[in-house]
């Protein structure tokens, strides 16, 4: 028994199954982060006067991380485009750059966390830091999750290129869509937590 439209699009919808699945999943992710952003707004609006920190984070590190993520969004797109152009080597190269970017992002993020901890600042310090650590922590978990999938596709998962290249290309596309979403969340997080 074979599930239809696993790798080829269904004619009337123009989509293969995983693409429908990932967009639905991303819709639910929007609601997850949307709820947290709403909580941010409510906590900020409801904070006692003078109790909300304004720009307490290192804007330079945040800017660098924003650049790293946007760059990695481009490279993962390139890795998919290379597969479409039938260049497996190009895919490997760009996916590797994407992976290195994720590691760089996480290293910078942990430097930021570390400096807060060393100043005795934890989630319990006040509601600003509570929502800061929750939002960025959950985002970092998404980075780790996406990076693990990318690592699998770059490593053992890439064997599928030989047996079912079309489906493998689709997998990279789906993983790329998730990665773009992770990038997009950060593009909202950065101004909200660092700049406003």
């Amino acid at each position, binding site marked *: 028994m*074979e*599930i239809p*439209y696993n790798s080829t699009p269904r004619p009337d919808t123009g989509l293969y199954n995983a693409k*429908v699945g990932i967009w639905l*999943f991303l*819709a*639910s992710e929007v*609601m997850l982060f949307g709820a947290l952003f709403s909580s941010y707004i409510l906590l900020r609006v409801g904070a*006692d006067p003078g109790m909300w920190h304004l720009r307490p984070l290192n804007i330079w590190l945040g800017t660098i991380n924003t650049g790293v993520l946007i760059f990695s969004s481009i490279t993962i797109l390139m890795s998919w485009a290379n597969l479409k152009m039938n260049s497996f080597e190009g895919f490997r190269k760009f996916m590797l750059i994407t992976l290195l970017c994720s590691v760089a992002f996480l290293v910078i993020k942990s430097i930021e966390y570390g400096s807060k901890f060393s100043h005795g600042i934890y989630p319990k310090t006040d509601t600003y830091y509570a929502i800061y650590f929750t939002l960025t922590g959950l985002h970092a978990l998404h980075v780790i999750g996406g990076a693990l999938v990318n690592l699998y596709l770059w490593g053992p998962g890439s064997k599928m290129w030989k047996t079912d290249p079309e489906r493998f290309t689709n997998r990279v596309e789906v993983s790329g869509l998730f990665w773009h979403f992770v990038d997009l969340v950060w593009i909202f997080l950065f101004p909200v937590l660092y700049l406003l």
Partner: protein
Amino acid sequence: MATTTQSNPHHDVSDSHHHGHEELSFWRKYVFSTDHKVIGIQYGLTALTFLLFGFFLIMLMRWQLAYPNQPIPVIGGILHFFFGDNAMGAVKDGGGYFIMPDFYNSLGAMHGTIMVFLAIVPLAFGAFGNYVIPLQIGAPDMAFPRLNMASYWMYFVGGVVMFVSFFIPGGAAKAGWTSYSPLATLTDMQYAVNGQTFWLVGMVLLISSSLLGSVNFIATVIQLRAPGLTWMRLPFFVWAQFVTAFLLLLAFPPLEAAGIMQLMDNLLDTSFFLPTGLMVGGSVSMADKISGGGSPLLWQHLFWFLAHPEVYVLILPAIGIVAEVLANNTRKPLWGYKSLVYSALAIGFLSFIVWAHHMYLTGMGVTISTFFQTTTMLISVPSVIILTTLMISLYGGSIRFTTPMLFVLAFLPMFGLGGLTGLPLGFNASDLYLHDSYYVIAHFHYIVAPGTIFALFAGVYYWFPKMTGRKMSEVLGKIHFVGSFIFMNAIFLPMFIQGLDGMSRRMYDGGASYASDMEAGILGLTAESIRLNIPITHAAFGLALFQLPFIFNLFWSIKNGKKVESDNPWEATTLEWATPTPPPHGNFTEQPVVYRDPYEYSVPGVKKGFVAQNESAE
């Protein structure tokens, strides 16, 4: 619970694989299966077990309400053995064991949680959705079979976490199924990991499970419909599940976010939901432990943003089942199929903007209350359209009074009663009086218990022959129906009276401490409404008694039920009856093609009285 994942004897007949691939091991076939039918049955049996367990919890509570502080008969000693002195106090002169207040709170919180998240939703959505949707749309399986398996096992582990929480120090969660902060954070604070922690972890697992399930359902309906099965030819059951899946997909994540925040409040001492100046017991200030600055209302907003759509998650699949059974047993097409579909879609959309009608009493402001009162009245319109459509569908039909049809016929007025009594709760002014009273309990139980659960029973009786090749006993089924119908009403009708009398819904002693005392000049609950607790409790035990025929019937009929003569014993039109019985792995022997609308019964000029969806025009 351990028995729920075990194999069913009736699978033995499904060995005749049509596609000739290698035999799977026992574990892959029945336990870690990716076949939507096995997963559906796993969901069904697990959920039915939890349904029974949740019912046991409420029977203990009912005993306490009717006979406050009297020892629990028969099983008091067993409960004391498991839960100890903190949960089960001993009567002084050695007369047995009674329920302590904290344990009563645990029972109440877990009854709600288990019934909603572990029993009804998995049964309505997980079990029937999984089993029936791919069959009704002519698909070989779900779009993502492995995600489907992961979804079931996450649900199972989430259920185990919830169940285990009864046995940890301090016992299960006590803050109600709504887990309002700060109560949920402050209860059992002496334990670092307490019942509430288990509740939150369990919920995160259940939410992830329903996320995987809903992605799968929607993708399946979009992608795997058989050729010719256009959107307006879908059986209404598929539409109902489709809308339900969207509700689960989009409404659950905010609760996941809220759950993560409450988990941090409980474990990392953050103050998301804890306000500045919080005191415990009127004297102990929390200022040295927490920073404050949080908002208790934030939790309520996030919780009800899920929990109101959740109400429609409970009822929509039930309406889907009702529509199928009703069309099949009236032998005529559903009246106003398109109105049904558009109403379900309208309900799905509106259910996202009514949540704060649960919060009129919080003082969130008149403007917001007015907005949510308006949307709440709006959402009753499509609900009434659905009910009216189904009622009119009965008109002029030659009704077959089979067991599933009896449950459906009872569903209609019961759901109507539950829905209509909801209107005073949707209005701001009357809700201030009725809020948190037994009136509320009666209202939503009328929708979920004689409403949804009756529809689910109808579904079990209706699709059982497809699952096993045998019908359930009609005699036992009718006994089950009559008893359930009488006792359901005997339980919930008096609760309206109690609620109107002002009885609060969370009373350990059945309201005795708020009773009127004319000599002391206290005007409180009347003695009559407190006394009503006793017949209600008796009716609850009666209801339990009448579930025995069902449980017996369910298992006995697998081997001994009347064999069905054909693959289509109910003479139905939809595609699930076009498969072999029971359907093999891969479902259809050949890809079905759909030529017509879902309910072509009593077609003029057709001798057998119905035309299946996959019958081509001659």
